[in-house]
């Protein structure tokens, strides 16, 4: 399932996928895969992404 919350949070921070990837220490393709729903990140990566976009885990990764 696509992670549109992450995409919108990233856009709100005016970050590209590459910038977010560099901020969390992964490849751009990994961020792309997370946003498209093709890859489920580990909790460690989830936390790093949330810190980079300034949101909580619930706001980005919890399915409503």
């Amino acid at each position: 399932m696509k992670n549109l919350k992450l995409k919108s949070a990233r856009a709100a921070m005016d970050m590209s996928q590459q910038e977010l990837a560099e901020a969390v220490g992964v490849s751009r393709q990994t961020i792309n895969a997370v946003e498209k729903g093709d890859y489920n990140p580990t909790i460690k990566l989830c936390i790093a992404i949330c810190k980079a976009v300034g949101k909580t885990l619930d706001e980005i990764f919890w399915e409503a």
Partner: protein
Amino acid sequence: MPHGSDDLIALILGVITGIAFVVLITMIVKKGKICKNGQYDERQLLVRSKAYQIAFVVLIAYLVINGIINSVLEIQWCDSFMGSILGIFLSIMVFAIYCIFHDAYVSFKEKPTQYILLFAVIAVANFGIGFINFDQHHDYIVNGQLSFHALNFICGIMLVMIILALLIKRGMDKKSTALE
């Protein structure tokens, strides 16, 4: 295949020289930096482990098919060393191409250009040695079997295919980045 101790020594020295050449070119192209496992992110490590599994299965399948062709059908299409090496080349190619198209071949801290350049240099060297072998022995097929003399040429072809995969993937990435 080499016969006698002189040929064996020449083979061993050739292998050592080849390895030293590759290491030297790698150091030059990558400016002394060697990528360690920790420079692949978690998704890339998962993809690479999947690629190793697939390459392993491909190798086993090749060995079984090759064994059936050689022993059951009694068709000696290549000498025994080439038969083994071709299986290794095939599984390496499967691993590399799978990783390339799943963005796990190149570490996220590196650029594909380094690998393209490195493989191009090694491919040219292998083609050069392959053509020298062809010139000396006048054929890669000896007694109806693909011989050891074709090893370098086939290695060059394998590297060219990996280079093509890297170039195609780079083109696809540029398009997807532009769309984003």
